[in-house]
């Protein structure tokens, strides 16, 4: 008896591949945003499937904050070589040096917000008209209202109250010169789906996601890894802990969780039992109730 049912992961996969192909068909100069995190790794995995045996019809774009984990850069370069993709790097340091962006100061300084400047400048420089991102609707409440095809005006801004309705599988990517789209093929995936898919497909991910010993400081309940970008405050001290990262962003704002998960199966068990969201360890989201929406309106990912 042949089966005509797809399980949830295969159905999500089919949907995402459809969206990725639609971007290649509808836009002239698309690009895939690659952060080195698990979502963008899954995105590149799906993109390879969408076009094989041909190579990706678009480059990967990494917005380099200069505050990356060294493991992330190493992993990025290995992956780019393996899939034979073209890599474009937008440097936040250059945006700061050229006066386009101003570095935050203070103990909680982060380059998270000024990444937007570099992203928009890089999109303009290469005339990219669509940026594929790994954003998911379950990540954050403002993202829950995001479309697959998210229209941005020529300033890169998102207008959440005036979004195009999105019906069936008909995606309207029409735009005027200078405008662009952010496209989110993983919109319907949850953190759990991503991990289950990584297991199902045996996708390689950076070692940072697995439990390891690292020097950290506990700041307001968030474990931050020791790096040149973190300065100790009064009363704080470095402690060696067995940790792993649930998300990978900047070293300055990505918190770690205490964990002994050393395999994908362990991670799935941990995620299933988790009592806080993965972004619960992200200092950048804790700034205000609508921090994500406010950043997105300005052109954030």
């Amino acid at each position: 008896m042949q089966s005509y049912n797809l399980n949830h992961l295969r159905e999500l996969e089919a949907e995402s591949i459809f969206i990725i192909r639609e971007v290649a068909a509808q836009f002239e100069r698309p690009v895939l945003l690659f952060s080195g995190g698990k979502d963008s790794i899954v995105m590149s995995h799906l993109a390879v499937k969408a076009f094989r045996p041909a190579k990706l019809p678009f480059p990967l774009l990494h917005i380099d904050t200069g505050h990356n984990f060294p493991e992330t850069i190493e992993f990025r370069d290995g992956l780019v070589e393996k899939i034979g993709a073209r890599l474009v790097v937008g440097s936040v340091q250059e945006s700061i040096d050229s006066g386009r962006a101003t570095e935050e100061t203070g103990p909680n300084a982060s380059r998270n917000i000024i990444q937007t400047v570099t992203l928009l400048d890089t999109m303009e420089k290469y005339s990219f008209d669509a940026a594929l991102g790994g954003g998911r609707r379950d990540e954050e409440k403002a993202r829950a209202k995001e479309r697959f095809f998210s229209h941005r005006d020529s300033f890169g801004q998102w207008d959440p109250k005036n979004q195009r309705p999105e019906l069936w599988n008909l995606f309207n990517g029409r735009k005027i010169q200078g405008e662009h789209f952010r496209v989110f093929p993983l919109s319907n995936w949850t953190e759990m789906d991503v991990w289950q898919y990584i297991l199902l497909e045996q996708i390689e991910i950076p070692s940072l996601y697995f439990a390891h010993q690292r020097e950290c400081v506990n700041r307001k309940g968030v474990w931050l890894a020791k790096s040149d970008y973190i300065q100790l405050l009064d009363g704080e001290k470095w402690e060696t802990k067995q940790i792993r990262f649930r998300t990978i962003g900047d070293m300055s704002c990505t918190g770690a969780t205490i964990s002994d998960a050393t395999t994908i199966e362990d991670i799935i068990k941990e995620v299933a039992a988790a009592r806080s969201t993965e972004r619960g360890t992200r200092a950048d989201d804790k700034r205000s109730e609508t921090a994500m929406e406010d950043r997105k309106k300005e052109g954030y990912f």
Partner: protein
Amino acid sequence: MSKIKDNGYLDMELLRFTTAGSVDDGKSTLIGRLLYDSKSIFEDQLESIQISSINRGFEHVNLALLTDGLRAERDQGITIDVAYRYFATPKRKFIIADTPGHVQYTRNMVTGASTANLAIILVDSRKGIVEQTKRHAFIASLLGIPHIIICVNKMDLIDYSESVFEKIKSDLQGFASKLHIRDMQFIPISALHGDNVVDKSKNMPWYGGPTLMYLLETIHIGSDLNLIDCRFPVQYVIRPQSDKYHDYRGYAGRIAGGVFRTGDKVMVLPSGFTTYIKEIDGAEGKVDYAFAPMSVTMRLENELDVSRGDMIVRENNVPEVSQDIDIMVCWMSPKKINVNGKYAIKHTTRDARCIVKNVLYKININTLHRLQDDKEVGMNDIARISLRTTQPFFFDKYKLNRITGSVILIDEATNDTVGAGMIL
């Protein structure tokens, strides 16, 4: 595949549903309840809405704050846009398209309904059937949602009265008899207290039916897609341009209907040429057969000129081919429909332009009467219109296939999506 069998949790079904209700029907509370009881709400989210609730001076933790994420929504206490929520039980993964109840945002319900297997419509037991309820039932049937669950909410406020529930049920069944609804069920609930949401209510022993969660977990959705009529809209042509794959030409797309097998004789539209399927490359590699809704790449035996917007079908089962199409349109723009006006139109992977030839009638969604004298079609109106397209479309009636039977109209000046059309 053996891996999937070893790990049961990798093999769940996906159910997409939409929720609709009028203002204050307790829709957000119900969703909050489903998320909370299925342990999909995390401590940091709960903590964050507890703080927000206190800041806003609410007596109870307001679960609606979980779904109303935008600043304007939190300030005004209303839901503006479709919000998507996710939860899973050991049996299924669920995607909720939570659509706002305000009249002016009806287009959002159409949006949420367009991809749903199931619709939950909330009715406030104290108010009974209101205009919005009828509108929601009508839209759900118009959009061909296979299953509809009517949740009669706030039963706690009417002393869990069986007679009130039965009255609402028979009122709505009377209205729904005029609609095409395959499967409609009624459940008395209290979203606030959890009666009949996940656990059976102790307050309503007279109700012998399933709880909402049980129904969501068990309702049969396997037959919701058309697996009879083979339709493969070509989305993208893969040509590697490398020495190794010099002659490779693959047609990529998502199967919109039916089952395709290697060796099948197929016809390519619009050319009408026939050939055989040489190879099907699925997401997991080469497969012998593929079915809707898989994304695959097909290779054909003969070198034919096939491009995006073409459709691969079976020779003895072809869709309708025409430039004249009648649709039921839901209008989504504050700018009224322009009769004799031109619009861009999208159908499967085909882009074209069209002219609106005629408005045949508008529908009064409360009485379902056809208004033949009122041809002004504005925001949230539903009307039957005739189109002529600049090139032939290959389509099926929406009733038969939601993918090959749907179109969107786009304003060429603003690029906004202004109409959602279902082919009649």
